[in-house]
């Protein structure tokens, strides 16, 4: 699948934003976060900025962005519609939560708004993941690891940005660091399991099943139906070289998981101060960059069944990347 940069950026950015919003909405009402006005302002503005930048970016790949509002109408059947609706609905408690915090109205209503914003964030990320998870023609997406990976990566980047915001105001507590580190490890484990799964499973559809021609004969494309590329090949026929995929997986793993873990550990060791704050910020930045690469690969490594008609069954389809 062609990795459209607007979508790659959208899922990474709003994933981090919803992750951060969910953590603040859950942890602030139970008193696990400092209820100071600067922290509320910095962390919530950061979360809403990530979310809004992502959502705006997602409209850039549309043929008619001005009609984007229509996308919230088909929530009965469409995960994309549900995502749009959940994203918009989450703004209401999120803005109320931020407003009440800044106006020192941190009471029951504020707590309720926080929890609702967290719930909305989780639902939105689930919808995003389900858009991909529900596409049967793409076996790398129609995969049980997709939903947990999306949720965990959003929780991980959110927790890292939370740690960065806390240490920027010099109020980073050990619990926040431990939470972020644990989520990095969990997300790394899920992503490795996903990569292993897509390497081991082979496609269900074959050129024989796609054409109804005899299964016991070799079937190979002889003449293409057109001499140049078309929409199908540009959009669904994107190919990435195996060695590039393997290299990019290492880059995603190093940037997304290993580097943030080391940077977090260093920030912990320094125990506060400007250097510690910079290290926590660097951890959040490299993790987000790593997820950006991971998300790009999520598209680039995805193979659509329509490619069968054009390329048959490449022997590399059941390849393993190790």
């Amino acid at each position, binding site marked *: 699948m062609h990795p459209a940069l607007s979508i790659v950026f959208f899922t990474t950015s709003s994933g981090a934003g919803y992750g951060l919003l969910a953590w603040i909405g859950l942890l602030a009402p139970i008193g696990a976060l400092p209820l100071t006005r600067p922290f509320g302002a910095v962390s919530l503005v950061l979360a809403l900025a990530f979310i809004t930048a992502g959502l705006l970016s997602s409209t850039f790949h549309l043929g008619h962005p001005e009609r984007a509002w229509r996308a919230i*109408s088909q929530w009965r059947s469409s995960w994309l519609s549900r995502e749009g609706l959940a994203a918009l609905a989450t703004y209401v408690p999120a803005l109320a939560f931020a407003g009440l915090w800044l106006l020192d109205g941190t009471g029951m209503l504020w707590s309720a708004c926080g929890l609702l914003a967290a719930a909305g964030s989780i639902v939105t990320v689930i919808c995003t993941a389900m858009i991909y998870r529900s*596409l049967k023609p793409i076996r790398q997406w129609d995969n049980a690891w997709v939903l947990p990976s999306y949720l965990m990566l959003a929780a991980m980047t959110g927790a890292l940005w939370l740690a960065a915001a806390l240490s920027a105001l010099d109020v980073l507590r050990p619990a926040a660091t431990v939470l972020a580190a644990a989520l990095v490890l969990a997300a790394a484990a899920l992503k490795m399991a996903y990569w292993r799964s897509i390497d081991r499973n082979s496609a269900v559809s074959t050129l024989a099943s796609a054409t109804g021609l005899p299964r016991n004969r070799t079937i190979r494309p002889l003449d293409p139906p057109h001499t140049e590329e078309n929409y199908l090949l540009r959009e669904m026929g994107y190919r990435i070289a195996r060695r590039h995929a393997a290299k990019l997986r290492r880059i995603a793993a190093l940037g997304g998981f290993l580097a943030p873990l080391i940077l977090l550990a260093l920030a912990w060791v320094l125990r506060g101060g400007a250097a510690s704050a910079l290290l926590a910020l660097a951890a959040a930045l490299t993790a987000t960059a790593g997820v950006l690469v991971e998300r790009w690969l999520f598209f680039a490594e995805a193979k659509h069944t329509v490619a069968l008609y054009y390329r048959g069954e490449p022997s590399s389809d059941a390849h393993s990347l190790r």
Partner: protein
Amino acid sequence: MTSLPTPQPGAKKLALVIDLDTCVGCHACVVSCKEWNAFGETGPLPEFGPYQSEPWGVWLNRVHTFEVGDGEDGRTVYFPKNCYHCEEPDCVTVCPTGASYKRAEDGIVLVDAALCIGCKLCSWACPYGARELDGDGGVMKKCTLCVDRIYDENLDEAARIPACVAACPTSARHFGDLGDAGSAVSKLVAERGGCDPMPEMGYRPVGKYLPPRSMLPIRATDESAAQGSRSPNGFLRWVDRVLSR
């Protein structure tokens, strides 16, 4: 509404039945589809760089060519591919705006260009590649089964068939109601063992392919081979000698 209509017993299910035995791969259906649908209901179907070195564009019907079998057993099969107007089309249900819909009255899957936001999700959801984005108009295009032709009462009744079916010189393309077990297309499917493309996807295509009648290799028989090697007698022998000089 992108939720699928509740299937009614006895409802019409219009689609194409394509005979892989008689298709000669002439692409007449491809061209006539483009010609009809570049205008009217579906149009335009833009071309990008039509007079440049790498022209490409939107076509709703494409003929693939496959080689089946190896070496002497190899045989060419032409495979026209277009929308099958599936009974459970995910291309419809994933649509966030209600632009994609399946008609309750005849099962035709259509896109309302006025509602389409061009998010491409329906084209990702189609396992067959039946949908192509019109990059100029920013909306998705697909086979309409020539809905602006098959119901046009200004046309002769015989002409109320999809353009691709009308164009086929070998009658490899058949159009009709697959919801009616007694229709000509349904009988053809039953007789010839018509099959679904990618049944494992669960989309339940309405359109069918009729498989090639025989996949046996075409070889010279022993008799004709023996005849060819025998030397001619009499007059033919004389002709052979004269011509061989």
